[in-house]
C-alpha cells in the first residue's frame, strides 16, 4: 500500500484536489464541502512533505503518466526545486483555508460557498500541476486551470470593482499565457518535443553539432523572449505588473492571502525552470544579457513599486505594490546565476510566501472586525485588537528583513551573492531599496499604535481564536524559518546546486 502510494505520489498531489473539486460541487452542502476541502488540502500538504523527503533521500523522481514514456507521453518530474515549491504552496493553501471560514462568511454570500471551495481546490490543482509536470505544454494547461480559477475567485470581491479587476487580470493573464504558448510552439518547432528534459538535450545536441555555437539561435532567442515575457506577466514583474494591485485589492481577503502567497511564486518557479532547466544559464546570461536586463528591471521595479506602496492608503493595495517589489528581489537573485544568488531567489519565494501570506491574513482579520482596509479606519486598533496588531508587527519585521526573521535570510544571501559577483552598485541599491519597506510597514505600525482609535477601532474586538491561531502559525513560521534554516535555505541551496550543476532537470 505504502509502496503503491509512494509510486503514484507525484500524480496523487494533483489528482486528489482535482477529483475533490467536482465532488465538492456535487455534495453542495456548505459544511461538508468545507470539511472535504480542508481534508484534501491537508492531505495534499502531507503528501507534498513526503515527496520532499523522498526526493531528498533518493534524488529526482520521474513518473510517466499512463505508463507512456517521454517523449511520447507526459512525464512528471519531481526534483528538489519543485518538491520544495509544491510543499509550501500546498502548505500555505491548507493554512489559508483553515483560516478562512469566518472571513468567508463575512465576505462571500453563503449560497456561493459550496462553489468557492471547488474553485479554491482547482486553483491549487493548477498551481501544483504547473510545478510537478515535466512537459511544457502541460505547464500551459495547468497555468490556465489556475488562472481561470483565480479570475473567478477574484471576481467574488464584494465591490463592483472586483469583477473589473478580475477582467483586467484575465486579459493580461491570457496575453501572458498566449505568449507562453507561442514560445512553447517555437521551441517545439526547433526540437520536435515537449518534454523539458528532452528539449534541453536537443538544444545541447544542436549546440554540440555546431561546434558550441547555438544552432537556430534566432528562433530559440525569440522563443526564449516569449516564454520570458509571458511568465513575467504572470509574475507581475515591474512594467507588466498592472493587473496585480487591483486584483489583490478587490479580491476577498482569503483569496488575496492565498493568491499572494502562491500564484506569483509558482510563476517564478516556472521561470527558473525555463532559464535553468531548458535553456542554460550560459544561453540566458552569457549569450544574452538577460542578467543585466533582469537586475535593472528588478531594481527599477523595486524602487518604483516600493515608493508607490508608501503612498497607498488602502492597506491591501499597499501590500500588493510591496509584492511587486518583492518579486524584484527574487529575480535579482535569479539573475546572479550562482548558487548563492539562485538560492536567495528560491528561498525568497518561500519566505515571501510566508510573509505575504501572513500579512494578508492579518489584513483579513482587521477586515473582519473593522470592515475596512483604509488606514484611517485602522487607527488605534492596536489597543482593541492587540494580538492581531502584534501579528502585523511580526510579519512586517519579516518583510523589512530584520535578523531572526526569514526575510533577513533572503536579503543576506542576495547581498553576499551580489558582493561575490562584484555587483557593488546592485548590492547598495538593493540594500537601500529594502529600507523603503521599513517606511511602508512602519506607517501602519504607527497608525495601529500611536493614533487615537477611530470610530470603528473603538468598538472592535479581537478576532476568533481560530483566525488568530492560523495567522500566528504563518507569521510565527517567519521567525522559525529565520532562525532554523535547514529546511528553507538548506533545501533552496540544494535545489540551486542541482539546477546549476549538470542540468539535473
Amino acid at each position, binding site marked *: 500500500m505504502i509502496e503503491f502510494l509512494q509510486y503514484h505520489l507525484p500524480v496523487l498531489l494533483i489528482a486528489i484536489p482535482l477529483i475533490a*473539486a*467536482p465532488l465538492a460541487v456535487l455534495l453542495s452542502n456548505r459544511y461538508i464541502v468545507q470539511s472535504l476541502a480542508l481534508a484534501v488540502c491537508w492531505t495534499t500538504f502531507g503528501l507534498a512533505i513526503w515527496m520532499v523527503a523522498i526526493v531528498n533521500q533518493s534524488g529526482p523522481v520521474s513518473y510517466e503518466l499512463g505508463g507512456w514514456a517521454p517523449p511520447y507521453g507526459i512525464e512528471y518530474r519531481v526534483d528538489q526545486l519543485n518538491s520544495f515549491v509544491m510543499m509550501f504552496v500546498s502548505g500555505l493553501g491548507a493554512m489559508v483555508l483553515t483560516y478562512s471560514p469566518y472571513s468567508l462568511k463575512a465576505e462571500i454570500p*453563503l449560497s456561493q460557498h459550496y462553489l*468557492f471551495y471547488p474553485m479554491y481546490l482547482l486553483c491549487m490543482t493548477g498551481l501544483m500541476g504547473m510545478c510537478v509536470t515535466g512537459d511544457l505544454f*502541460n505547464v500551459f494547461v495547468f497555468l490556465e*486551470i489556475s488562472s*481561470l480559477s483565480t479570475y*473567478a475567485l477574484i471576481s467574488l470581491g464584494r465591490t463592483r470593482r472586483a469583477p473589473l479587476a478580475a477582467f483586467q487580470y484575465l486579459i493580461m493573464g491570457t496575453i501572458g499565457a498566449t505568449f507562453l504558448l507561442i514560445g512553447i510552439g517555437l521551441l517545439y518547432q526547433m526540437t520536435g518535443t515537449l518534454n523539458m528534459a528532452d528539449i534541453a538535450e536537443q538544444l545541447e545536441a544542436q549546440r554540440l553539432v555546431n561546434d558550441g555555437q547555438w544552432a537556430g539561435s534566432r528562433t530559440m532567442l525569440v522563443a526564449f523572449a516569449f516564454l520570458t515575457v509571458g511568465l513575467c506577466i504572470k509574475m507581475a514583474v515591474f512594467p507588466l505588473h498592472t493587473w496585480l494591485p487591483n486584483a489583490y485589492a478587490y479580491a476577498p481577503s482569503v483569496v488575496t492571502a492565498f493568491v499572494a502567497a502562491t500564484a506569483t511564486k509558482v510563476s517564478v518557479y516556472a521561470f527558473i525552470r525555463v532559464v535553468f532547466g531548458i535553456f542554460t544559464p550560459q544561453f540566458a546570461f552569457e549569450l544574452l544579457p538577460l542578467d543585466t536586463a533582469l537586475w535593472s528591471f528588478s531594481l527599477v521595479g523595486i524602487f518604483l513599486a516600493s515608493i508607490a506602496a508608501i503612498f497607498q492608503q488602502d492597506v491591501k493595495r499597499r501590500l500588493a505594490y510591496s509584492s511587486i517589489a518583492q518579486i524584484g528581489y527574487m529575480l535579482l537573485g535569479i539573475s546572479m546565476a550562482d548558487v548563492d544568488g539562485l538560492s536567495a531567489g528560491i528561498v525568497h519565494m518561500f519566505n515571501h510566501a510566508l510573509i505575504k501570506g501572513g500579512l494578508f491574513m492579518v489584513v483579513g482579520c482587521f*477586515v473582519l472586525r473593522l470592515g475596512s482596509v483604509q488606514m484611517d479606519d485602522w487607527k488605534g486598533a492596536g489597543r482593541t485588537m492587540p494580538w492581531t496588531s502584534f501579528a502585523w508587527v511580526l510579519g512586517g519585521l519579516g518583510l523589512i528583513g530584520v535578523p531572526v526573521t526569514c526575510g533577513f535570510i533572503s536579503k543576506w544571501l542576495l547581498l553576499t551573492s551580489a558582493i561575490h559577483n562584484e555587483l557593488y552598485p546592485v548590492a547598495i541599491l538593493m540594500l537601500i531599496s529594502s529600507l523603503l519597506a521599513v517606511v511602508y510597514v512602519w506607517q501602519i505600525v504607527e497608525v495601529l499604535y500611536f493614533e487615537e482609535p477611530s470610530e470603528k477601532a473603538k468598538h472592535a474586538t479581537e478576532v476568533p481564536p481560530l483566525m488568530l491561531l492560523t495567522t500566528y502559525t504563518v507569521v510565527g513560521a517567519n521567525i522559525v524559518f529565520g532562525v532554523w534554516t535547514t529546511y528553507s535555505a538548506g533545501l533552496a541551496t540544494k535545489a540551486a546546486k542541482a539546477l546549476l550543476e549538470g542540468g539535473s532537470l
Partner: protein
Amino acid sequence: MFVSIFILTLLVVTAITIARIGDLWAAVMFTGIFSFLGACWMLILDAPDVAFTEAAVGAGVSTFLMLGTLALAGKTEKPTTSSSVVPLFVVAVTGAALIYGTLDMPHFGDPNSPVQTRIEPSFMEKSQSDMHGLPNVVTALLASYRGYDTLGETAVIFTAGIAVILILRRSNDGFKSNDVFNSQSNSRKGSQ
C-alpha cells in the same frame, strides 16, 4: 497553393476588418468568419480534427456566447480617444521579433524539420502498434499519450463552468450591502 494563398488573404482581410469595425455585431460576425476561414485552412494543412473543432467552437459556440453577451451589454463600440501609437509600437516590436524568429525555422512543410523527425518511431507507427490500429491517430493521441492534457482540458472547462455560475449568480442572501469592504462606498448598484 493558390487556395491557401486565397484563404490566407481572406484571413488577413477579415482580421483587419475586425480591428477597424465599430459595430460590435458585425465584429462578432467577422470573428465567426475568421474562425471559419481558419478552420478551412487547417483542413488544407491536414488537421481535420482541429478544423472541425475550430468551426464548431470558434465559429459556433463562441459567436453564440458573444452574441448573447451583446444582447445583454450593448452593441456599439465608442470610438477610442486614446492614441494608438503605443499599442502599434508594441505590436510592431512583437511582430518584428516573431518574424526575426522565423528566419531560422525549418521551412513550411519541410519533412526534415525536428517536428517530423525527432520522435522516432513517429506517433503514427507507435500508435498503430499501441492502439491496435485505431485509424484516427489524433484521437488516439488525445486519449493516450496526451490523455493527461485532455484531462486538464476537461478541468479547464469545468473550472470555467463553475466560474461562470459563480460570477453570474447574484445572491445577496443575508448580506446588507454595507461598507464592509471599502470605505469608498462601492456598494453594487445594478444598472436596473
